[in-house]
């Protein structure tokens, strides 16, 4: 227990300022402020892998590390699409995931905001369309915003979420 506590103390709080990436702290602070002003509560995300190579998943997971500390600013991942404000979809949509993606989307409450993550989600990426792939996410469900990159860096994902909060939730 002593080792655990002393490691915690030594590590300190890493969230601000992030040592290498200079953009991240700015985005995180802005996101927290906007969430408070616009939404007035936490933003709930649901992620669906519709056929990705798992690269995008690694960077989405990184959002929860202490540097980006996404949950700390009021964005949390939820287990059910029924609880989600925003759906993150990765991958080209494989034909084997087409139905599952549609059902997930249908289960979301309005306004059903969708962000397609990564080059594959945005345009089909290197896999394109084929007998097994429907290509970009927008071919299957309506998409409000895309974040390109292979995989997109956490800061790019943060900026994408920030833009969505500003443009899609500001009326509500």
């Amino acid at each position, binding site marked *: 227990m002593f080792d*655990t506590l002393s490691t915690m103390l030594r590590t300190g709080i890493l969230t601000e300022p992030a040592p290498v990436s200079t953009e991240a702290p700015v985005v995180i602070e802005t996101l927290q402020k906007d969430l408070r002003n616009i939404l007035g509560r936490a933003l709930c995300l649901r992620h*669906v892998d519709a056929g990705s190579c798992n*690269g995008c998943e690694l960077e989405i997971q990184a959002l929860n590390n202490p540097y980006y500390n996404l949950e700390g600013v009021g964005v949390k991942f939820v287990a059910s699409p029924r609880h989600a404000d925003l759906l993150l979809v990765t991958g080209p949509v494989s034909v084997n995931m087409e139905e*599952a993606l549609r059902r997930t989307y249908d289960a979301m409450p309005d306004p059903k905001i969708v962000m397609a993550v990564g080059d594959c989600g945005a345009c089909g990426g290197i896999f394109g369309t084929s*007998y097994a792939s429907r290509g970009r996410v927008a071919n299957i469900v309506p998409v409000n915003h895309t974040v390109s990159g292979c995989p997109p860096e956490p800061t790019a994902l943060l900026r994408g979420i920030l833009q969505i909060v500003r443009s899609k939730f500001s009326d509500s």
Partner: protein
Amino acid sequence: MHMSFDFPAQATRQLPSNLACRCVKVDAASWRRAAEELSASGGRFLTLWGADDRGRDGRFRIYAAYLLPQDVLVLEHDPGDVANPTYPSLASQFPSALRMERAIYDLLGVASTEPDNRGWLRHGGWPETVFPLRRDVDGTQQYPVVSEAYPFLQVEGDGVHEIAVGPVHAGIIEPGNFRFSVVGEKVLRLEERLGYTHKGIAKRFEEMRQHDGYRLAARLSGDSAAAFSWAYCAALEAIAGTVCPPRATNLRALALEHERLANHLGDLGALGNDAGFAFGLTQFSRLKEDLLRTNVAAFGARYLMDYILPGGVALDLPEHASRALLDQYLTLERDVKNLRSIYDEHGGLQDRFREAGRLEKDLAAKLGAIGLVGRASDVCCDLRVDHPWAPYDRLKATLVTQTSGDVAARVQVRFGEIGESLQLCRMLLEDVSSGPIRTEVPLAEPDRLGVGLIEGWRGPVMIALETGPDGAIRRCHAHDSSWQNWPLLEYAVLGNIVPDFPLINKSFNLSYSGHDG
């Protein structure tokens, strides 16, 4: 190991590869007999694939690759009658072959003698009369999805009920379907259904140029991008007769070890978290993030999707990056050592890790466990150690194994391999000779088959590449070790309680995308 039968010399040819590799043409009787003898003598089954050569010589072909102590053995078999091609199943000797056989049928329409004919990669997304890997099938044609029932094996008895999980999971993870049969909390049976992320990679390769295929290989499983792109380049370079410059070879190994470190760090954090120790996730995800940021300075990106390319690497290691890397290894080593002792001495954590998801050595060996999961059950195999290719042939990596085969063992193997990887990285940096980082790879001759085999962080990944004319790819088969280890998870979870499944699953951390292709 002694093979009690010899293959006739005229049926044997050497294959271009980063390891010693030979290919032998065999008839059905020898195909079957070889499997029996290889199984009895401890040969390791690597992968199975097929090709449509009807346009070339009127035949289909099936290949099986085995790892022998001295080399890689590829058996080539003609499954006969093109209207109804069939070959002997390997599943009774090598159980992991079963799903590969089902996948080959789905894609190529060449059947094994095994009776399980449920679709494995085909879930109704294309008609059962269409075999996409056949050369006369247009891979870009799309079909409406027609949902098909998939009969899971039913367990009957007093109080037995089923829990269906997936394909969409409650987390930031890949999709797959798990069907548990349970009594109370106890798991009586788990049946996996995979294939959800199948995106037609094998067919897509055939639309690409040889010199571009590494990009697709890297995206077979994003967490193993360095391993797969290296395996692809190794196959292509061997066919073209290119030798990668020594500096580039060292940098490739450095990238591969960084990939191993990043994944092990991520897994150790997630394993702590799944056992209720959020501190572990915070600490290890911090260390992983530090490493990824160093990757930007050293390799130009956090994830090494396009770093390893034909003839070498994309970017030279800056002089100052080398110093920074060595400093970081010191810090990382110190921090991991500290966290290891915290994990080891945390009673609550060890209580969850020990005895959970146990895979005994005998069963692991019999079922063909491979890679990290194998090593945690004392199945000793690591290509870097037992079949070292350049530069591992002079690094003399040390094998890390455990004997208990439980979650605790898979945790310990990861800790051990982080230490070993850091040692290798230091040796690679000390020894990184100056010189070019890339050489020209000429267009390879058509109709040559080459093999690339690399020990990724999960286990061996393999690329079997067949060249076409004028820089085209005729056929490319990519294999991830998850194919071998997914069926083992079904055994490891038996008798455990359902709430321990996420922990056991994470301790395997297998690739869905790498498996589904």
